[in-house]
């Protein structure tokens, strides 16, 4: 198993919360003073998107915890089902997430 608790969860959570509130505080401070259509804001958006895309692909392809013990194709099938329903339902995100989740439940129950 991966070595855990290199540091206390409370410490990580507190620092993550402060790092998050920093953006809210700065946004409050700058509100009305900056245009949100500036190149710097665009850059922030791009970094956020790239980081999140990387995280999502990693959580599907190289997951941690209980999901790490499932066959890859289960997760790919669930993600694929979500995508398929998303296209068929004309971008109904709720139904699509539900469909993907149900596929995973089904595969996990049948243990194929």
């Amino acid at each position: 198993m991966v070595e855990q608790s290199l540091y206390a969860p409370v410490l990580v959570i507190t620092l993550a919360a402060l790092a998050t509130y920093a953006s809210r505080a700065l946004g409050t401070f700058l509100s009305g003073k900056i245009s949100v259509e500036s190149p710097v804001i665009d850059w922030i958006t791009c970094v956020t998107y790239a980081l999140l895309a990387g995280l999502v692909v990693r959580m599907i392809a190289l997951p941690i915890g209980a999901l790490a013990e499932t066959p890859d194709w289960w997760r790919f099938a669930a993600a694929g089902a979500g995508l398929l329903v998303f296209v068929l339902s004309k971008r109904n995100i709720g139904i699509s997430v539900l469909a993907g989740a149900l596929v995973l439940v089904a595969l996990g129950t049948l243990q194929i």
Partner: protein
Amino acid sequence: MTNAPLPASSAFATPQAAFWGGVREALGVPMLVMGASFLGFGSMIRDVDWSVWHALYSTLSTWALPGQIAMAEMAYSGAPLISIILAVGFINARLLPLVASLLPHVRRDNVSLWKYYAISMLIAATSWVGTMQRLASLSQDQRLHYLTGYGLLLYTGSPLFTVAGYLIAGQVPQPVTLALVFLNPLYFMLLFLFDLHQPQKVLSLLFGAILGPALFLIAPNWSLVFTGLIGGTAAWWLGRNGWVRQKVSKELKKGRDDG
């Protein structure tokens, strides 16, 4: 996303009514979407063997889900503290433009400054999307109340779903727990597909999706931070040059029209 003016009945009788109007309008789809996400987060926290109090503390103190998920993911994988904080900081930096663009709509002269810093805590992606359009249809003295009601309902509902997700994950059959933990990756993946209009965003997603796993194989602990910085900056730079070209051609056209 319609441009048609909202009916006059959409305005409230008093500021207090605006507060409760905000509460009412956040119930339903916004609460459901948010709730499902926090349900998944609660299940995930159990999956990484943290306590229910950790889950609760994170939701109440951070209240910005993608960063919370990255935090739990990276802490479990043993990433260094600095790397985790940077990743969370970059992910949640998107709150800066959300807050900066929403607050001018509720600003009034006689409201003390600290209230804006407090209410910024209630601004996240869901509350921004839900209120940004609506605020314009309300009178100035009702907007802050409306936003407070809307944000507060989502904020106070989130810990309930977080705890529920944590508790459910231990009680249901394993396949259901797996699906709960898988909710957020699925949801985020589909959410990205809504946003495929701007070239910069498309490129960012593409670079991130490729660099994420690739860099993980080279430097697992720092891969997310580098994925964001390298992929995001490259996409921004490429898109920006495209934008500059467009602007130049617009100026040229303007010059022609003037001449």
